[in-house]
């Protein structure tokens, strides 16, 4: 249930899916880096700068409602019948649940976080640390969230039913009247209104949020305490999701909201609608934090909530060093641990590892279907030589990602077909990644004027320029991949220099477009369809990309702080991107995407990297999962909280371990959602 | 000389080990010091005079220096055989020592008072206050003006002469019967040297201690000592009363030394008699007489065996085969002016 997730649609994939206990150690690092990404032009919806005396939240809210009457509408229940006449109410009840209703409640789950959180706020500065997932992203419900098993459909959370008025771009929601905050206060549309006010307020110090809420939504309409509607600015294939996937905040808790909100609310614990809450005396700074299941949670027996959020307590130890965390897991101090990296899965915890062989650790591979981080070499076309199409084509054939998949990932990884794999359909079946072929690469390089092979085997052109490029990367752990690429590229007479930078410097370098080639990827949220504007549009590459006649502008300057890593500017592609962003149906989306993928492929500034079709975890045998383990579109084990603790088995296992007895070895693989 | 001497050194041999070989820096040195008298040991650098002095205190640089043989009888006890504990009692107790460079003999980070009282407390059963009072008396005795002020100062705040006085005060702190002074005035100016020598003589008169004064300056010997040992290359060349040595020197080396010093009475800009050549190195000592290479009277037998120490007169001995054959020595007469 990533309610606010779609806002951070794209974030630097600092290998969140590959490392880190429970797969979160790096996400937080990525999000802030990417948050001020491409589209931000910081036009805020709410005026009233906080400089003048702030009258208090309630007064400011009332003033805002008055001033922005075109956004906030208040109608009567009678109007509802009129407005929704002829619309179909949905409640997602026709779709199967993914959790196991037989799951047992109780027990304590031991996990880790790489840092003690810098705040308990879930919005604003420092809020996007890994701990937020436990407060918000994975725990707090939205009105509706996308169904992770059946893309294109929603499941109900706070909303019990919803209706979509395509003509008016409006989505109506009926809220669960039993929903209540963890402090016992019932949830009403007052909170809904407050939530919009909150997200759109400049006081939250988050221009990206302000901008998103200004651009995405045209207005909300409240009918009664449990009914409201959201009107979208544009019609999109996933408009329902965009309207419904919003986490509300409790208005009563934010009565002190104001200019000092950042400081005032740093360590206050926000009441939640979710299953887990934080209690003051469970905060053991700096070593651990424990979450507790809300007693008699209002949604306990709701469809899509039952069988989930099973452990009574979730104990999060702060362990900064991933190696230490791994040791803690092997020792038994942590219950679940991501084994995504081949070094862990095969190297440090092989199947014959005593911990595994004794049955104390279960190793499980779960095949999921999500858009993978788009790992690739991005060739910066704004750099000399890389603006040459033949050079780029040569580089494509000189880069052996197939060997990376085979050697580094031991055959587990595959090469990404297009820039947008994993959205549930083949973007462009005609496209085939260019194979590693030194001879062919040399042909292209020769065409580009690199005809002489130097004494070191590197090609040079007649000006004496060596065919040598620097690959910038912030992934220290992927150095080995770059080493393979470097060694293999030599066969094509191409030299790669490897430059491993720390995250900030490396990110800055690519944001300033000073790299020649970067090994980078952006994390992508589970969505219905991919985004192109941010990474491929000309306006994110140059200030003035084209002359009026459409030809490249010779005086154009590289645009910094955008995610167009390859400085790609193609007028035809730009046109398609515009159409794509206005597309209202999935058919249009698919057709345009295929065309855009073709252009990107032909341009050859994106060297297809690798993807992994699964996530892998290790856990204790007393932790149980539903039949198919997790929903199809889950990214890691904690996202949907479907596991439960079998306390009897836990006791038995620990007794067996203490007695030195072995249990059955469990190396599991859930390939229900595996794609051919 | 019927009375037993305070200190008698017999056949002392001291060696330094380096690289497996032992260089004999002092070889067969013998002399006596009577109670209350002053013995000078004179010689050029490297002749072994300081080594002799340090051997008496058993303070040879370790681990290279070793006493190879002989006896050092002090108040009837052989210090060569003495235990560390006995030596400890002797050093700074019965024997006081004054060094050439007073600054290095004093601890730069402790007050004068602390150092003097420490020396006192080490050998005498005194309270701290009593020791402090006695230190002031001592400093007064060695001629330090306003000692109650100076006692609180640090060595660097004193002049060279004052420092040497402090060192002497420390050496005297336990009423030693013997004071060994190793070039006590070499680092000092002429006028200060005169003060210090005067001080030592007056202290000797008052306290009745014997002094072994080591110096290279024949003038100092002549002015201060009763008897003197002339050392050359680690051996005794000649010894006797100061009067005998300066007026009836029997050894060619003593004669050469006396002749080569410019005196106020020497005719100006005249050529001085010289001793040609230089002292042989420790490792290249010739067999026989060690002075042979520089001696104008050397003959074949001098190269064969070392000459024995022969008695010239009562209390005057010389180590030369030919002392009898040497021409008559013309003593330098005082200036006629």
């Amino acid at each position, binding site marked *: 249930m990533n309610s606010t997730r779609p806002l951070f649609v794209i974030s630097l994939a600092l290998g969140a899916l590959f490392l880190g206990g429970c797969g979160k150690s790096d996400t937080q690092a990525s999000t802030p880096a990417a948050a001020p990404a491409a589209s931000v032009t910081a036009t805020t919806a709410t005026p009233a700068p906080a400089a003048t005396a702030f009258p208090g939240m309630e007064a400011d809210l009332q003033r805002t409602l008055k001033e922005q009457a075109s956004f906030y509408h208040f109608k009567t229940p009678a109007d509802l019948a009129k407005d929704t006449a002829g619309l179909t109410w949905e409640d997602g009840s026709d779709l199967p649940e993914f959790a196991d209703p037989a799951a047992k409640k109780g027990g304590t789950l031991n996990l880790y976080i790489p840092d003690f959180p810098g705040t308990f706020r879930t919005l604003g500065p420092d809020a996007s640390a890994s701990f937020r997932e436990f407060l918000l992203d994975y725990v707090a419900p939205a009105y509706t969230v996308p169904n992770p098993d059946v893309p294109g459909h929603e499941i109900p959370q706070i909303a019990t039913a919803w209706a979509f008025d395509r003509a008016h771009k409006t989505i109506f929601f009926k809220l669960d009247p039993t929903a209540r905050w963890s402090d016992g206060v019932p949830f009403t549309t007052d909170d809904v209104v407050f939530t919009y006010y909150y997200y759109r307020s400049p006081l939250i110090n988050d221009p990206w949020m302000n901008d998103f809420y200004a651009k995405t939504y045209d207005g909300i309409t409240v009918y009664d305490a449990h009914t409201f509607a959201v009107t979208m600015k544009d019609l999109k294939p996933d408009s329902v999701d965009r309207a419904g996937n919003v986490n509300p905040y409790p208005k009563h808790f934010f009565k002190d909201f104001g200019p000092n909100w950042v400081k005032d609310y740093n360590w206050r614990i926000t009441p939640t609608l979710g299953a887990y809450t934080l209690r003051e005396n469970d905060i053991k700074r700096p070593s651990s934090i424990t979450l507790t299941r809300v007693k008699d949670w209002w949604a306990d027996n709701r469809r899509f909530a039952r069988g989930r959020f099973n452990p009574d307590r979730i104990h999060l130890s702060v362990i900064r060093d991933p190696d230490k965390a791994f040791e803690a897991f092997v020792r038994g101090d942590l219950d679940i641990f991501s084994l995504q990296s081949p070094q862990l899965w095969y190297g440090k915890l092989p199947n014959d590892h005593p911990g595994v062989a004794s049955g104390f650790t279960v190793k499980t591979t779960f095949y999921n279907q999500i858009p993978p981080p788009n790992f690739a070499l991005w060739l910066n076309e704004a750099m000399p030589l890389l603006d040459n199409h033949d050079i780029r084509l040569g580089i494509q054939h000189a880069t052996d990602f197939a060997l990376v998949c085979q050697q580094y990932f031991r055959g587990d990884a595959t090469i990404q077909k297009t820039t947008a794999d994993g959205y549930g359909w083949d973007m462009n079946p005609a496209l085939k990644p260019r194979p590693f072929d030194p001879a062919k690469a040399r042909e292209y390089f020769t065409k580009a004027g690199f005809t002489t092979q130097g004494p070191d085997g590197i090609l040079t052109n007649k000006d004496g320029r060596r065919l040598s490029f620097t690959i910038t990367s912030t992934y220290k752990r992927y150095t080995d991949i770059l080493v393979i690429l470097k060694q293999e590229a030599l066969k094509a007479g191409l030299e790669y220099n490897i430059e491993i930078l720390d995250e900030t410097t490396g990110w800055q370098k690519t944001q300033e477009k000073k790299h020649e080639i970067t090994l980078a990827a952006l994390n992508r949220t589970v969505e219905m369809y991919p985004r192109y504007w941010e990474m491929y549009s000309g306006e994110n590459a140059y200030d003035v990309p084209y002359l009026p006649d459409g030809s490249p502008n010779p005086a154009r300057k590289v645009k910094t702080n955008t995610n167009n890593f390859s400085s790609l500017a193609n007028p035809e592609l730009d046109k398609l991107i515009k159409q794509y962003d206005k597309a209202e149906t999935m058919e249009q989306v698919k057709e345009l995407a295929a065309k855009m993928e073709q252009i990107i492929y032909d341009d050859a500034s994106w060297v297809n990297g690798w993807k992994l079709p699964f996530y892998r975890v290790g856990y204790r045998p007393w932790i149980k999962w539903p039949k198919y383990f997790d929903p199809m579109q889950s990214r890691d084990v904690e996202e949907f909280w479907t596991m439960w603790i079998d306390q009897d088995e836990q006791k038995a296992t620990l007794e067996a371990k203490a007695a030195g007895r072995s249990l059955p070895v469990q190396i599991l693989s859930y390939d229900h959602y595996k794609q051919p | 000389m019927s009375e037993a001497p305070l200190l008698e050194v017999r056949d002392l041999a001291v060696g330094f080990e380096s690289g497996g070989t032992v260089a004999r820096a002092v070889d067969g040195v013998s002399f006596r010091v009577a109670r209350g008298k002053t013995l000078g040991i004179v010689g*050029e*650098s490297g002749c072994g005079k300081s080594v002799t002095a340090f051997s008496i205190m058993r303070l040879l640089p370790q681990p290279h220096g070793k006493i190879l043989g002989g006896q050092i009888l002090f108040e009837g006890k052989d210090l060569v055989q003495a235990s560390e504990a006995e030596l400890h009692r002797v050093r700074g107790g019965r024997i006081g020592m004054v060094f050439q460079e007073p600054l290095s003999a004093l601890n730069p980070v402790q007050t004068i008072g602390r150092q003097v009282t420490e020396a006192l407390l080490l050998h005498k059963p005194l309270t701290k206050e009593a020791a402090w009072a006695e230190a002031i008396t001592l400093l007064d005795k060695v001629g330090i003006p306003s000692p109650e002020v100076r006692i609180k100062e640090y060595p660097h705040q004193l*002049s060279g*002469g*004052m420092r040497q006085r402090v060192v002497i005060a420390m050496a005297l702190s336990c009423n030693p019967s013997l004071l060994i002074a190793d070039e006590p005035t070499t680092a000092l*100016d*002429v*006028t*200060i*040297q*005169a*003060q210090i*020598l*005067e001080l030592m003589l007056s202290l000797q008169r008052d306290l009745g201690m014997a002094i072994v004064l080591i110096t*290279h*300056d*024949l*003038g*100092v*010997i*002549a*002015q*201060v000592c009763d008897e003197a040992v002339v050392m050359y290359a680690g051996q005794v060349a000649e010894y006797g009363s*100061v*009067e005998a040595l*300066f*007026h009836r020197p029997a050894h060619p080396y003593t004669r*050469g*030394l*006396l002749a*080569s*010093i*410019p*005196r*106020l009475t*020497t005719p*100006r*800009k*005249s*050529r*001085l*008699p*010289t*001793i*040609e050549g*230089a*002292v042989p190195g420790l490792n290249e000592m010739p067999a026989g007489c060690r002075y042979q290479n*520089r001696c104008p009277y050397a003959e074949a037998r001098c190269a064969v065996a070392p000459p024995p120490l022969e008695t010239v007169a009562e209390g005057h001995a010389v180590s030369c085969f030919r002392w009898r054959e040497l021409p008559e020595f013309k003593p*330098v007469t*005082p*200036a006629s*002016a």
Partner: protein
Amino acid sequence: MSSPAPILEVRDLKTHFPVRGGIWLRSVATCKAVDGVSFQLLPGETLGLVGESGCGKSTLGKSIVRLLSPTAGSIRFEGVDLATLGRKKLKPIRRHLQMIFQDPAESLNARHTVGQILEEPFIIHGIGSAEERRASVDTLLDKVGLPRAAAHRYPFEFSGGQRQRIGIARALALQPRLIICDEPVSALDVSIQSQVLNLLLDLQREFHLSYLFITHNLAVVKHVSDRIAVMYLGRIVELSDAEELYARPRHPYTRALIAAIPEPEPSATRTRFIATGDLPSPINPPPGCPFHPRCPHATELCKREAPPLRETSSATSPSHAVACHYDLLPAAIPSPLGAPR
């Protein structure tokens, strides 16, 4: 003084050093090491400069060869004032003005052979070819009585006296006319001292050298000097013909000095006139006559006013200058050399 023009004429020379303190090393006091010294030195003459440590005699010597920069006054060497000359202009003059140092072990670079050491003057002044330089080295070694083979050996292989000969040879290399001898025999053993003194005297005769002979040894200075200047606390207190000075010392300090010499003559007992007290510091000299705190004859005038160096007429001496307010008659103080015991 109708004799030839002086080779060196020092007039009112002052060399002061700032005494620095604090973190910015500001000058907090001045050490007046040489404070207004004037004298002349004739060709072929030896002027002895005698005094105790800290009296400024070495500073004076070093100022004359411009190892130190004088604060005021002039140093006319053969008519040229060296006091203000720059390094480049000084260089040609250095050939005629050399120095012999106290400790030969210190003044010879231990890393160079004797040959290299003696060749250096020629290299610095660009004189002769390599061949000629080697010949010159041989000649120099001959002159100071060292074997020619010495050129290939290192200083530490020689005895103290031989090393001082090397130092003298180096000073002689450029055929100087004036040599500043800064305690040239003080570090030597008695038996060697006379060898070196003889050598210096021989060389003076042979090359008609002038010496400024700095020493604290009153016997030595008398032996080698024609005239002697006695320094006390940065000033000359008495300057006279050598014989005259010892026969009729006029300054109480000179008398104290002479009295303090330990004569190697046991029969020579003197009525000791021992100057009491310590040498004052040149940083903080006493007002008036610098010697007054130690002088048995000091009066109120001495405490108030510093006496200038004035010529005193005497029948026996052509020149005898003294810086004392009083004409102390020889009879007023005991004779330095007393009667035999």
